[in-house]
């Protein structure tokens, strides 16, 4: 019976599983009880130091609980990611506009109650009540963003990321930050409703989930599975640059050296990744010796893939020269970060275009053929 109560009631609130709320309250008040027990046992008033020390875990527990609930509010009732639930729902007369059997993904009155109670508990700990809205809201937003990635409309995530960035910019003013999170909710509400309209989000199952072997992987009609459109590359690079700028603007001067190291490493690895992704398995049609021998020093349809890594290297070298002389400025760091991401994802040619029209040899084959040829020559000699 107790199990039933803990997992089912209130009936229209199953997504905010009562069990978790009770567990949270139990832990919270156990800490208070400990303090009361201490006072009763030693027949002394609770020392201020002890009260303060006990409030620390209580506040962390409340914060953790709100983040957890923010995530659970989306993940628990969402049919995406729960194959059995989704498949079952497909067989029912459910359609967008009807309540979801496991509860709504959008927020309602019960969430307000939860936020009011936890907000009150924060005030008892001497903190802002708005912290509850902020923590719950950020977690909820992140969960919605993750779900939108698979159910669409995924590009709303850019708007929400921008919102989170502005929210972060507003910190440490908890009230303004909470207000921004609240202002973002109508976008999330619309996006969730919109995504439900495209239920059951037939997964874009790749035509093959079985590895196909190199000839089919590289020469089949689907040469590249992952594509980053130019628009997305630009937006992602701007958002990344913006977050670096905001982070650095908010941090103290001593964080600048750390940021420099982070950016230099990021630039270095971005160049390496870009080169590896394009040239991994695709080798130069003519090596340096052959280029010199044949006089074809540049092969534009292959060498184009070296442009982005070389630009990244040049950017890195410039940044190092400047930053050795003085610490990085937030605007510089943001621009540098945006350029790294843009050069990594946005600079042409796209991987698909290169794989389909570039002048390269598939390494696996050329190395095998070279080996074969070498062995044939060795044998004939």
């Amino acid at each position, binding site marked *: 019976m107790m199990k039933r109560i803990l997992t089912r009631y209130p009936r229209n609130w199953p997504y905010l599983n009562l069990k978790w709320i009770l567990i949270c309250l139990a832990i919270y008040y156990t800490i208070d009880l400990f303090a009361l027990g201490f006072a009763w046992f030693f027949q002394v008033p609770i020392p201020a130091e002890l009260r303060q020390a006990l409030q620390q875990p209580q506040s962390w527990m409340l914060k953790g609980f709100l983040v957890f609930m923010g995530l659970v509010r989306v993940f628990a009732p969402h049919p995406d990611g729960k194959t059995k639930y989704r498949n079952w729902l497909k067989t029912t007369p459910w359609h967008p506009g009807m309540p979801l059997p496991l509860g709504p993904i959008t927020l309602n009155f019960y969430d307000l109650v939860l936020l009011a109670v936890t907000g009150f508990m924060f005030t008892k700990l001497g903190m802002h009540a708005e912290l509850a809205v902020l923590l719950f809201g950020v977690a909820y937003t992140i969960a919605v963003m993750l779900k939108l990635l698979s159910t669409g409309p995924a590009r709303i995530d850019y708007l929400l990321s921008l919102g989170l960035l502005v929210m972060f910019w507003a910190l440490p003013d908890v009230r303004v930050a909470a207000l921004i999170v609240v202002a973002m909710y109508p976008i999330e509400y619309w996006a969730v409703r919109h995504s439900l309209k495209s239920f059951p989000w037939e997964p874009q199952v790749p035509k*093959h989930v079985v590895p196909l072997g190199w*000839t*089919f992987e590289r020469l089949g*009609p689907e040469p590249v599975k992952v594509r980053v459109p130019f628009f997305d590359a630009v937006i992602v690079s701007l958002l990344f640059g913006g977050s670096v700028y905001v982070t650095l603007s908010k941090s103290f001067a001593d964080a600048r050296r750390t940021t420099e190291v982070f950016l230099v490493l990021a630039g270095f690895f971005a160049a390496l990744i870009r080169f590896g992704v394009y040239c991994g398995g695709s080798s130069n049609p003519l090596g340096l010796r052959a280029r010199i021998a044949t006089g074809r020093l540049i092969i534009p349809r292959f060498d184009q893939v070296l442009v982005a890594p070389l630009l990244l290297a040049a950017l890195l070298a410039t940044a190092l020269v400047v930053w050795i002389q003085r610490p990085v400025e937030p605007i510089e760091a943001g621009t540098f970060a945006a350029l790294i991401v843009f050069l990594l994802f946005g600079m042409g040619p796209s991987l698909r275009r290169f794989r389909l*029209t570039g002048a390269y*040899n598939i390494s696996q084959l050329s190395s095998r*053929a070279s080996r074969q*040829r070498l062995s044939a020559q060795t044998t004939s000699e």
Partner: protein
Amino acid sequence: MIEVVHVTHHYGIRPVLKDISLQADRGEILALMGPNGMGKSTLLAVIAGALWPVIGRVKIDGKWRRATPEDELAIRRQVVYLPAEPWLPKDRTGREWLLAVGRLYSIPETRLMDHVPRLLSLFDLEGKGDEPIATYSTGQRKKIALAGAIVTEAPVMLLDEPFAGGLDPSGILALKRIFQKHREDRDATVIMATPVPELVEDIADRIAIIHNGELIACDTLAGLQRMTGKAGPLAEVYESLVNMGASSKIEQYFGGSQ
């Protein structure tokens, strides 16, 4: 139709193909022949788009290879390439792999479900079809790779040494019949590289002979017979074209042992 236009290819600074031009028509079986290491596999890989020729181009069905993404994709939908040593996903079963390859080429599911068991049966792989490819013998791996090429139903098949790699006589027979059937019923073009004349003599419409990276002949068996003045089987004609010293070397070898 496949057109190879003045293709030259190097490995490093060593030329492997020297100004090769040839064409294969629809519904034609063309055998690329030549001694080991003379450029057959390289030419096939160039036609398949796995290698980029240093000079020259390849045209398939009126579209240049790697000219535009759309043209290249259109070509890829028409072409299947099977190298001599294909990489197969060893942890998957043969049936799974065949289905995945068929889906990659957008073969309707119902046709795949009908075709795959027939292919497995044709190559005597019914018992192994649901076992991981890792458990297959060398010959069975060759068979499943060939079945993978066939299941695509691609009208252009580029096969590097399809009869090698441990294929048993029943497999060879099955493969020959499939090539003939594809040519007759579907107007398919098959280009295969092989160093063994006996294996292609009865099925190839034309034989292209590559020696030291150069195309020294490309004709029907009758045409090659006229060219060489030999009336015998392909092996004899081929021998006179590429291995002119082979008989004397054999004589020399046995003479030296006495």
